[in-house]
C-alpha cells in the first residue's frame, strides 16, 4: 500500500489487515487517544498545531514511518526466511598483518565450536566480524559467508534480525516482571506464534537445567544465579531469532551444562563457546585457537579427547557429590 492509500484507512481497519501494527501504534503515543474508527487522513487533519506539539508529532514523518514499518514487517513476517545452515569464515590477517593459516572455518547448525586463547587475543574481534558479516571491510579483512553465499546487508542494520545472540556471566535480568510476564513480553516482541506452548516449554526446559525449580510467578530478578542462567539459555534456544549463540563461559554451578548445550544444538543453533574449562572445551565438536588477533589453529576434537572428556566428567561428578555431602554436614570418608 502506498502512503496515500494508507491514509484512507482507519487504525482499526489497518490493525485488521496488519495485526503487527499493534506494536507500532503502542510506540506512537498520540494515536492511542484517537477514535480508531476514523480514517487516518481525518484524524491527522483534526490535529491542530498545539496537539501536534503536545505529542511531539509530525504528520509527514508519521505516515512515512507507518509505511516503512508495514513494508519491513511484511518482508519479515511473510517470507519464511531461508534458515542459516552454515557460516563460513574466510581467512584474513592477524594483528601483525600476517595472513591466517587456514582455508576456511565452517560453523554448522547443531554443532559446538569452542574458542580458546588469552583475553585480548581477538575473540571479540572474531565475534564482531561474524555479527557484521564482514566482507574484508574490518581490520582483520576476514570474509563471512552465510550458507556459502555472500550475505545481504540486512544482517548488519536491522533491529529485528541479528545474527548472534550472546550469553555471558555478567548478564542479569533487570526487568521488574515475573518469569511468565517476561516470556510473554519476549514472545510478543518476536510475534511468535503459539506463545503459550513455547513459554511452557521454556520454563520446563529451564527447570530441568537448574537444580532448584522456580515457578512462572517468580520475579525474574529474584532467580538464583543458576536459575537465571538456565532461563536465559532456554529462552535463547527457543525464542531468540538469532541462529548463532555465543556463550562466554558457563560456570560449573547450579546448572547442568551438558544439557544446556543440548537444548541449544537441539534448536538448530550454531553454538560458539569461549571457555578455558577443559570439560566445556572438549564437549565441542571443534575448537579454534586464537593468537595475536588471528585464528591460529582449528582442531577437530579427537577420539582421545572424547575419551578423556568421559574421565573428566566422572571426576567432576565425584567432586560435585563431595560438595553436596559437605553441604549436608557429612564427614567425608573414601568410599
Amino acid at each position, binding site marked *: 500500500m502506498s502512503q496515500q492509500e494508507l491514509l484512507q484507512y482507519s487504525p482499526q481497519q489497518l490493525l485488521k489487515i496488519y495485526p503487527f501494527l499493534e506494536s507500532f501504534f503502542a*510506540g506512537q503515543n498520540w494515536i492511542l487517544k484517537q477514535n480508531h474508527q476514523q480514517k487516518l487522513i481525518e484524524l491527522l487533519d483534526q490535529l491542530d498545531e498545539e496537539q501536534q506539539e503536545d505529542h511531539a508529532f*509530525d504528520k509527514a514523518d508519521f505516515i512515512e514511518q507507518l509505511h516503512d514499518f508495514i513494508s519491513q514487517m511484511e518482508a519479515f513476517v511473510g517470507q519464511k526466511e531461508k534458515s542459516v545452515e552454515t557460516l563460513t569464515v574466510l581467512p584474513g590477517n592477524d594483528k601483525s598483518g600476517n595472513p591466517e593459516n587456514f582455508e576456511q572455518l565452517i560453523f554448522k547448525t547443531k554443532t559446538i565450536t569452542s574458542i580458546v586463547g588469552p583475553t585480548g587475543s581477538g575473540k571479540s574481534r572474531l565475534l564482531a566480524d561474524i555479527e557484521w558479516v564482514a566482507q574484508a571491510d574490518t581490520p582483520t579483512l576476514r570474509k563471512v559467508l552465510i550458507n556459502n553465499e555472500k550475505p545481504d546487508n540486512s544482517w548488519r542494520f536491522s*533491529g529485528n534480525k541479528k545474527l548472534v545472540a550472546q550469553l555471558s556471566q555478567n548478564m542479569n535480568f533487570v526487568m521488574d516482571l515475573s518469569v511468565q510476564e517476561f516470556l510473554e513480553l519476549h514472545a510478543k516482541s518476536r510475534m511468535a506464534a503459539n506463545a503459550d506452548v513455547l513459554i511452557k516449554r521454556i520454563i520446563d526446559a529451564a527447570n530441568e537445567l537448574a537444580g532448584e525449580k522456580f515457578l512462572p510467578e517468580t520475579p525474574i530478578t529474584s532467580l538464583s544465579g543458576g536459575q537465571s542462567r538456565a532461563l536465559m539459555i532456554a529462552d535463547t534456544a527457543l525464542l531468540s531469532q538469532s541462529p548463532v549463540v555465543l556463550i562466554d563461559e558457563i560456570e560449573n554451578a547450579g546448572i547442568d551444562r551438558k544439557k544446556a548445550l543440548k537444548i541449544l544444538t537441539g534448536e538448530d543453533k550454531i553454538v560458539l563457546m569461549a571457555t578455558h574449562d577443559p570439560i566445556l572445551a572438549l564437549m565441542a565438536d571443534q575448537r579454534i585457537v586464537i593468537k595475536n588477533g588471528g585464528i591460529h589453529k582449528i582442531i577437530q576434537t579427537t577420539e582421545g579427547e572424547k575419551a578423556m572428556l568421559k574421565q573428566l566428567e566422572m571426576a567432576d561428578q565425584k567432586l560435585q557429590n563431595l560438595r553436596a555431602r559437605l553441604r549436608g554436614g557429612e564427614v567425608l570418608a573414601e568410599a
Partner: protein
Amino acid sequence: MNLVTISGPPSSGKTAVILKAAESLMKRGVKIGAVKFDCLHTDDDLAYEKAGIPVKKGLSGSLCPDHYFVSNIEAVTDWGIKENFDLLISESAGLCNRCSPYIKEIKAVCVIDNLSGINTPKKIGPMLRMADIIVITKGDIVSQAEREVFAAGVYAVNPSAIIMHINGLTGQGAFEFSTLLYDENTQIDTLKGKKLRFSMPSALCSYCLGETRIGESYQMGNVRKINL
C-alpha cells in the same frame, strides 16, 4: 568536513561510544573534533582531550540545552571548518525529552541504553524517532531476551533507522559504527539556511523568564493547566 549530531539521555553511553568509534577513525587518519552541549556540568571535554580530540564545551545553564544547541551549532561548525577537521562530532545530552538537536541533511545518531527501561523508547520522542542511526548500549549486562525486547521497542518507534548494538566498555561494534559516521564525499561548508528536523516547543512562560513566586497572578504567557 562531515558533521554528526549525537544525542541521547544522560549517561546512556554517548561519550563512550564516540571515543571508541573515534579511535578507529583516527587510525584511518581522519581528523576529528568534538563539541559537548550540556546543561550544568560536564567532564566530557576532559575525556575527549585525553583521547587527543580537540573539544569545545557549551553549558546552557538555565536554558533548555537543545535550544542552546541550535543557537550555537552554526558557530561551532565554523570553528570545526577553520580547524580543518574531517569530522566534527556534536554530543548533547537530551534532557527535556521533547526537543531533539537534529538538523535536516546532517547525520543524526541517538544513543540509548538497555538499562533505561522498556518504556523509554516511547517516552523520548523526536530524539529517537527522527534519528538516522540508533545505538543501543549496555547490552553486556542484561539478558539476550531483554536486549531483543528493548530493540523491538526501539524499532516500533523508529522503523526507518539503522539499529546497532555497541558495548561502550569494550568497543564491540564501534568499528562498524565508525564506518557509518564518516564519508569522504560529504562536505559541509556552513549550516546557514539548514533546518531543524523537528520544531522545538514554543512554550515561554513567566517562569522561563526567571519568575520564582508561585500563584495565579504570577503566571503569564504560555501557561497550561493540569486536568484535575
